[in-house]
């Protein structure tokens, strides 16, 4: 927090405890603190943000870890089919770095998409048969097919997309939003994260906590990771044998003791601590309620597919995401791992699509039916694409794979002020390079911020003597995708 904001909080809290000393009870104090936004989970925006009317108020980022294969799913290249089995043209790969698994790409054979594509809806978006549910709602979606990035390996590329820097240590998108826009959540974190892994995947990717870290921003802005099993939040359950009334009693006593201390010592942090203990008590109720789907209509549950009832699956997390934003969370980041098809384009890719296609589409339509899509931005995409040429032996179809590819990939967005039914930008005939209306990662980030009413150049934080921002020192808003 900026020192001046810190000072403002301190001074304001002081006014509060000046009053509590004269007899306002602790519960009232906690309520006041909560309503006036002087606590971690419900915090004020940085003064001046949003800087203009936002199109979106919140974000759900469906992050596809591993690098979804753009040429098999969304980026239709008939030329690839024609060239199937022929060596990649030297002109297409000269000067490019690929992962060490590919090394020198010269002579690698081109690989046709594994499933047929069709055009869908009034917008005529091309989507592979691998993604039937997404195809069916393509008129709601805005595809960007000209994404490109700087990094060629997973962790740096994911970090780059989510924090603007390839190395760990910068605040992630959600942390910036929590910091800049504050929180509307009374009982839940502003920035929540959930992870899932594709069934039976051979991929060993790890979800590093810096993917949702707060970097140098105060750590209360870091994403709170809801676990996929047991307690969604660590230490959420009371100790065995302790009932709610006992905990309530204990916290009441604690508040009395701490208020005595506050009156005696005058440290405003004590008031904040009282409020945080109260919030922890509320979260013990709000988090289990969040995860209780018993009131969801059968038709809604049905739309997300059968996995929705199984904690830890992507479908379950999608429904949790909707419930979180309904309760005021600012940013929900779902991360789904397994998209790393080095040798499984004809096998695991099918499972991967099946695990995510239906629930992603259901989430968009569920939001729409509830009138939430207008101001909720949904994003689907990974850290890079995959090579249009093969990794593996073309004669051994069950082992076909594609390697990491930073030069072109596809993401889609929905709601939150983006143009529906649009395909923006394009890669070349081979899906090798983004060529038309290229969108760099920093441009993409600038655009997200813009949709949320933030000028990406203005939301900065002073650290180690420098003003940092999500987009580093780059980024242009992509006006063409904004409704």
């Amino acid at each position, binding site marked *: 927090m900026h020192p001046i904001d810190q*000072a403002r909080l301190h001074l304001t809290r002081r006014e509060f405890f000046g009053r509590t000393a004269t007899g306002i009870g602790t519960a009232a104090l906690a309520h006041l603190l909560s309503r006036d936004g002087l606590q971690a989970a419900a915090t004020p925006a940085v003064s001046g943000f949003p800087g203009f009317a936002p199109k979106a108020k919140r974000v759900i980022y469906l992050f596809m870890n591993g690098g979804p294969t753009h040429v098999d799913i969304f980026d239709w290249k008939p030329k690839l089919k024609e060239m199937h089995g022929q060596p990649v043209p030297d002109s297409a790969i000269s000067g490019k770095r690929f992962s*060490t698994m590919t090394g020198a790409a010269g002579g690698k054979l081109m690989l046709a998409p594994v499933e047929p594509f069709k055009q869908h809806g009034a917008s005529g978006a091309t989507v592979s048969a691998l993604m039937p549910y997404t195809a069916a709602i393509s008129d709601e979606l805005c595809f960007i097919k000209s994404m490109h990035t700087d990094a060629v390996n997973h962790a740096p590329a994911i970090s780059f997309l989510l924090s603007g820097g390839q190395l760990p240590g910068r605040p992630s998108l959600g942390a910036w939003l929590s910091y800049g826009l504050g929180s509307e959540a009374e009982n839940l974190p502003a920035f929540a994260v959930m992870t899932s892994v594709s069934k039976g995947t051979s991929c060993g990717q790890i979800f590093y906590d810096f993917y949702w870290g707060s970097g140098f921003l105060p*750590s209360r802005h870091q994403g709170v990771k809801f676990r996929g099993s047991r307690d969604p939040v660590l230490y959420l359950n009371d*100790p*065995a044998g302790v009932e709610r009334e006992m905990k309530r009693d204990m916290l009441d006593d604690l508040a009395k003791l701490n208020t005595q201390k506050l009156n005696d010592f005058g440290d405003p942090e004590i008031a904040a601590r009282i409020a*945080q203990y109260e919030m922890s008590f509320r979260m013990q109720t709000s988090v289990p309620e969040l995860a209780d789907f018993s009131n969801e209509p059968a038709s809604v549950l049905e739309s997300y597919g059968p996995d929705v009832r199984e904690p830890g699956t992507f479908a379950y997390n999608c429904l949790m995401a909707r419930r979180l934003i309904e309760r005021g969370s600012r940013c929900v980041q779902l991360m789904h791992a397994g998209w790393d098809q080095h040798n499984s384009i004809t096998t695991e890719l099918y499972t991967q699509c099946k695990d995510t296609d239906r629930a992603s589409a259901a989430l968009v339509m569920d939001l729409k039916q509830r009138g939430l899509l207008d101001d909720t931005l949904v994003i689907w995409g990974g850290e890079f694409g995959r090579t249009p040429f093969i990794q593996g032996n073309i004669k051994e179809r069950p082992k076909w794979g594609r390697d990491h590819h930073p030069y072109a990939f596809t993401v889609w967005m929905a709601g939150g002020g983006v143009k529906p039914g649009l395909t923006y930008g394009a890669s070349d005939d081979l899906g090798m390079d983004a060529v038309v209306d290229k969108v760099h990662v920093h441009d993409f980030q600038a655009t997200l911020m813009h949709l949320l009413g933030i000028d990406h150049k203005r939301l900065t934080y002073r650290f180690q*003597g420098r003003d940092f921002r999500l987009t580093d020192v780059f980024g242009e808003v992509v006006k063409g995708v904004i409704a």
Partner: protein
Amino acid sequence: MAVFSHRNPLLLLAGSTALALSRLTAAEPVNFSREVLPVLSDRCFYCHGPDEKHRKADLRLDDESAAKAVGKNGAAIVPGSPEKSLIVQRMLSKDPDELMPPPEAHKDLTPAQIATLQRWIAEGAPWGKHWAFTPLVRPAVKEPGNPVDALVGATLKRDGLDFSPSADPSTLLRRASLTLTGLPPATEEMAVWLADTSPAAWEKQVDRLLASRAYGERMAWDWMEASRYADSNGYQGDSERTMWPWRDWVVKAFNRNMPWNDFTIWQLAGDLLPNATDEQKLATAFLRNHPINGEGGRIPEENRVDYVFDMTETTGTVWLGLTLNCCRCHDHKFDPLTNRDYYSLTAFFNQTPLTGQSRDGQLPPVLRIPPADEAQRLAELEKSLTEKRQSLETERKAAEARRPAWEQKLLTDAGTTKPDGQPGPDASSAEILRIAPEQRTDKQRKTLTTAWEATEPALATLSKEVGELEKRQKGMGKDGPKVMIMQDRSDVRKTFMLYHGLYNKPGEEVPTALPGFLATLPAEAPRNRLGLAQWIVSKENPLTARVTVNRFWQMLFGTGLVKSSEDFGVQSEFPVHPALLDWLAAEFRESGWNVKQLLRTILTSRTWKQSSRVTPALLERDPFNKLLARGPRFRMPSSMIRDQALAASGLLKPMDGGGPVNPYQPDGIWEETTFGNKKYSRSKGDDLHRRSLYTFWRRIVGPTMFFDTGSRLVCSVKPLRTNTPLHALATTNDITFVEAARALALATADKKEAGARVNAMFERVLGRSATAEQVAVLLSGMERHRQRFAASPDRAVKFLGEGTVVPAEPERTPELAAWTMTALTILNMDETLNLE
């Protein structure tokens, strides 16, 4: 937000600006380093600073001659004439196209800042250097007594303030114990202190704490965060490593008060010292605490370059207080540190023969740390071997006498065949015997001897025993952890500038050199890490002493005299007590880099001993306690909160170093993060209750019982101190605290009177008795808890049955359960969680 509308805009300037303003009197000339340079740096250098490639309009304001040079429109700065100075004209311009800084940069100057610049130019625009880069000179202190108090007192007086009264004696000892040892004072220690009326009573206490074993463990925690210590490599796979002998070395080094210059040289270059000992080599593990990336698809050289960057940047932050990482790609935007300086500095660390192509947690060069009893075991083994060989020899001599007869019999028997027509059993030996002795091959001789020995049972047994002992001897010298250490290659690896830090985009070759603006290595100094380390602790380096005492101050007061303890560059905040910082730094260096003496000086000062109680007026005036008109109060590190609970409840078990332990952690944390590859196996017995320092640190998913810790991914020297609901969930629900509360209730069960029991708990946790109000609140709570547990006694049985320190079932009474709730309440009081 109604409350905000009452705010006084002036109060919002609280912090350095307001404090600095309060000291601006017309009589005092503008201080370049404190008042001008920060403004120029913050508002102008981004475009008109040291970075040549990013410089706009060919104007630089970080260099005196360039800033004062006359161009076709005049000079940016005209000494004596603010109105003629182009920068002032542009800063005051009404034309948005002319205005500087440009409005779109959002770096607007305040009227006060412009006024200061004008006044400085009017005074002749005297140039200077950023304060932290100027030579360290000990400020004169004329007043008697502790110089810390003289210097702080002078500042307070100038601001019309005075010291707060001293904290209560019990508060003071608790503060000192936690600060220096990370543990609360034992009740007997508190009693001794309270009863001691001697004049040097306080000094005695401070010396006792500095001499305690726990001191080294407490100091080591911060050093582990600075050195990004972990027990695994990080990244995919996250293999384990065994660097803990280095951690134990750090504890011992603090405890024996190793001078900071040696502590520095050993860790940066112990291997390069003449006739380096194993201990000196072990110290260099500091540099090898970097993560190791074993991710598939990574290029080994890219990894290796990352490790070199990490060593360079960690050294830069810890000893120089400089953020070097910006300079991987370009000249620093604010500090006079160039892209070339950065790579010249990496050359010192670029000489280690380590490979980037491994996920091995014992990646060479390594040092094996033999088990403590290895030498003794080896000596014993050698002794038995010698004895056994002698017996064998004696026996052999006796047997030799029987050999000719055996040979003769063999030759005779060999002529016969067995009934089935096959050759006799010793046919081959007999054939050898027929060869003349001098013509037999070694193999033949051995075959013969073996055959003969087989007929001599005593000989055979002894021979076998000798063989086994020899095998054991050969196998020894391999046990024990291997610690990754530093070592330089025999040939010098060339170092190049790397475009944007990319391993495969080398540019110009660079020499092994210090950052040019700070110093050049003396001609006679070795061009290696030893030369660097020796310069770091030399008088020529103005930074290390300042940066180090500032970190110790931060440990004692919660915040450094320079708030950005990781950055002493031009963008850092000017210290409110610059003379104090320089006095402490000079004192530290001139005392022979004596850490305990430095801490003793501060802990015995009136400044540190002040009460941390704050009045509304003082809070309004100085919310962050920059002026030091009150004592420190801040939430303890989470590791200390855990250790305090264990110590106060009597659960804490001492540990004399060794491999890391796995205390209570909810199930599935490692498994979920590593897809089941790493299984958390909870320690048993005493290992559940060791100090937090000894907890296994898995780099990709740190221990969950802690919060606000350094990431252990990169160097971290500034504590995080957040206040979130998740912390409250941990300290009220985690079995660690629930079990400690139960132990606390059991440990005080001998107090039959309820009020006395509350007091006993308070004394163990807070070092003092409870107030009457506190006793009233806690006893009424206890009674309500007791009634609830009495209504469902099975709850009491469950509540008291979790964990490992569990009373027998008949003793799990509602009464004990209620007292445990009371103890848990005390462990969660704000006062308990704070150093105050």
